[in-house]
């Protein structure tokens, strides 16, 4: 019988925006109880504005912010499934006291503020580890908890630059480019899942909690490991290679039928090259002296690209992929996000959950990049409305009375509408 890996594990989630929320989304899939802490004055930035500007940047279902846009914002919704939402203004004495009482009930506290924020709030590791000596405190920050740049602000796109990833990403003209999204955030979120598990194992061995310092910039730099080691030994500075690979020819993306449709091909051996020639109906190419051997193909890459382009332009990208793969050639359609939602392979593997969200409607949710044979992931729980679980967390877990909760609400320490929202 499959059961959930993390049943019984309680996580106090003080993260926001992307990197931390990805980590807790994944931990939630595996069964952890994740209590997401925000406040009405400072909700997760990914919830967008309390009063979004018409036609602004926010992503809402059907383009409609709706009555409570903070519960419908696309980025928030997709990153915060499997969590419970608590609003608690920890900048107040009462809010902080309640937060510390919750710390005592949790196994893990995870946060991704600027390095000194939790200390300023009086919730640094020194304090919370006194309250709960068995707590695993996971501190995710841009630059790490120490060092001269520890207070520097960053977005995922900043880290692509400062960790070096942009310096090796780009066309062959050598100009660096960014990913246009925030590749480092989910990467570090994935690693943080492993770090939480490492902390729990340390606790199992020592009986004590621990503090983990996870610097996004350092983890991102690890993605360039071979280039860093190469530089350390030789002084060579890695440059962008476009879509090329030194040992694969042909390698690149080639235009297909339709607007902005492409096929990726990566041929790593003579056998794959021969398979490619068969697949595209030009078996004689395999023996063409310009292309018969790896070195010859390397020398005539441009000519080869032209021949392949002439063929791919007549092809539909998925069909061409299946045809080439049937001939043993590594090939893949360059999919858009929309295409991945209905990709037959991802669908067959049960990768997407169809979520019916009370304030959003139906959408497909990214799940986990792993399948554990005896520890199934749970189906996505829709991302919670702001403060949806105040009663559960403060009432049931902390035992506050209705009167106490009402007082907190009157003082603005808890609530379900952000500061600045129009009255309902």
């Amino acid at each position, binding site marked *: 019988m499959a059961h959930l890996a993390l049943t019984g594990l309680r996580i106090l989630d003080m993260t926001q925006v992307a990197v931390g929320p990805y980590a807790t989304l994944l931990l939630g899939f595996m069964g952890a109880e994740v209590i997401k802490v925000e406040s009405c004055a400072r909700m997760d930035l990914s919830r967008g504005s309390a009063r979004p500007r018409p036609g602004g940047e926010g992503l809402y279902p059907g383009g409609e912010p709706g009555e409570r846009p903070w519960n419908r914002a696309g980025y928030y919704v997709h990153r915060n499934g499997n969590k419970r939402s608590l609003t608690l203004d920890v900048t107040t004495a009462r809010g902080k006291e309640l937060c510390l009482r919750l710390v005592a009930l949790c196994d893990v506290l995870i946060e991704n503020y600027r390095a000194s924020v939790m200390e300023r709030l009086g919730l640094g590791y020194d304090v919370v580890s006194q309250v709960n000596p068995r707590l695993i405190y996971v501190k995710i920050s841009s630059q790490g908890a120490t060092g001269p740049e520890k207070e520097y602000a960053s977005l995922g796109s900043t880290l692509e630059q400062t960790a070096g990833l942009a310096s090796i990403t780009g066309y062959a003209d050598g100009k660096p480019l960014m990913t246009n999204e925030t590749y480092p955030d989910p990467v570090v979120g994935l690693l943080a899942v492993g*770090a939480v*598990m*490492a902390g729990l194992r340390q606790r199992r061995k020592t009986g004590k909690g621990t503090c983990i310092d996870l610097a996004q910039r350092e983890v991102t730099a690890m993605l360039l490991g071979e280039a860093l080691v190469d530089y350390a030994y030789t002084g060579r500075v890695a440059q962008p290679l476009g879509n090329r690979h030194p040992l694969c020819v042909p390698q690149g993306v080639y235009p297909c039928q339709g607007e902005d449709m492409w096929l*990726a091909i990566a041929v790593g051996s003579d056998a794959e090259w021969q398979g490619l020639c068969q697949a595209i109906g030009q078996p004689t190419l395999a023996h063409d002296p310009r292309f018969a051997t790896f070195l010859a193909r390397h020398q005539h890459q441009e000519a080869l690209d032209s021949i392949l382009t002439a063929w791919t332009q007549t092809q539909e990208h998925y069909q061409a992929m299946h045809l080439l793969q049937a001939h043993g050639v590594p090939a893949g359609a360059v999919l858009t996000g929309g295409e991945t939602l209905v990709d037959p392979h991802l669908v067959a593997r049960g990768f997407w959950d169809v979520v019916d969200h009370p304030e959003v409607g139906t959408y497909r949710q990214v799940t986990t990049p*792993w399948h554990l044979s005896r520890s199934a992931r749970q189906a996505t729980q829709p991302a919670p409305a702001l403060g949806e679980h105040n009663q559960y967390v403060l009432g049931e877990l902390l035992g506050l009375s209705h009167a106490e909760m009402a007082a907190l609400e009157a003082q603005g320490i808890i609530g379900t509408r952000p500061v600045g929202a129009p009255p309902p």
Partner: protein
Amino acid sequence: MADSDGVLDDIRVLDLSQEVAGPFCTKLLAGLGAEVIKVEPPGSGDVSRRLGPFVGTVPDAEQSALFLYLNTGKQSITLDLHSPTGTAIVQRLLPACDVLVESDAPGTLERLGLGYADLARRYPGLIYVSITPFGQTGPYSHYKGSELIVQALGALMHTIGLPDREPLKVGGYAALYTTGISAFAALMLALHVRDSTGYGQHVDVSAMETITVAQIHASIQHQFGRRPGRRPSTLVRAQDGWIHPGLERGVRDDTWSRVCVMMGRPELATDPKFATPEARREHQAELIPLLEAWTSTRPKEELYHALQQLHSVAGYVATVADLFTSPQFMARNFFHELTHPSAGTALYPGAAFTMHGAAWQHARAPLLGEHNAAIYGGRLGYTPEELAQLRGIGVI
């Protein structure tokens, strides 16, 4: 309390994986103190030994930077898994192992009698991690993948690059490294279950799914009515490279006016085209040349620090060389010196994270078959004569 030798110092890993993703996963395990026994094909070894870049003047299996980085802290034994003698030796190693990591095409190890179902019967506590481009099931499970192919199918590439050019991959082996991180996280989850219940399981990690998770934005945007596309670069030229001024998001109210003063253009502060973060996003094409008039004569790191002081989210495009002189990386001792008998001494990137009470373990990558005598002789009890015979028939 003295640091322990790591949270995995009681865990032994049999690592049959090759190339990038599997080895990166087991490198992280070694950093946490696990004993990792890397099994390499006799003669050529792990394919990453051939991939380079090579740190010496000629390609040498002991001098591939990719191999040297990805295999720190492991032991290497050579073994021909495709011979019955080789698989029999694996069977002798397995009882003492907690984790097996492999990256062969689905079904390959099954045909050798080393599939999960076979091994689980004998070793119910074994955690068996399979890392492949597309996972163990589904219509593409037997398709061939690579760094480029999974970046394509995971929808990572389509939005990277310039609007008038073809989609562009993220540089290096970013997708395969990330897949190694997925495998690491999944394995640690399975280990948590084993610590609690005693049983192992099969962990199926897919590179395509890893990239689809990493490109979660694409699926969000397509469902919420936006069609993201390739966009013009927003990097700005500095004297010695590139910066991103970081003025469009997450800045303070007075950041822009202070930047204008610093640039010697105070009148720009009130120009409505640039007055708010949203306006600056909208008029980026006009803004970049104005900024470049100032930035292009100044060093990128100086600009980075100056702009960060004004509460922007500025960045600079660090080259690999810049990372070694980064004051932040140096202050945190991110790089660690390792000495390898063939490649020599150099600084390597260090810990993925630091944990109070458990120091990250740093040790060099092994030579091909360096631990044959210790593992086969010392641990399995083969005599020197038997080892010589196994070598003679090409099994080790």
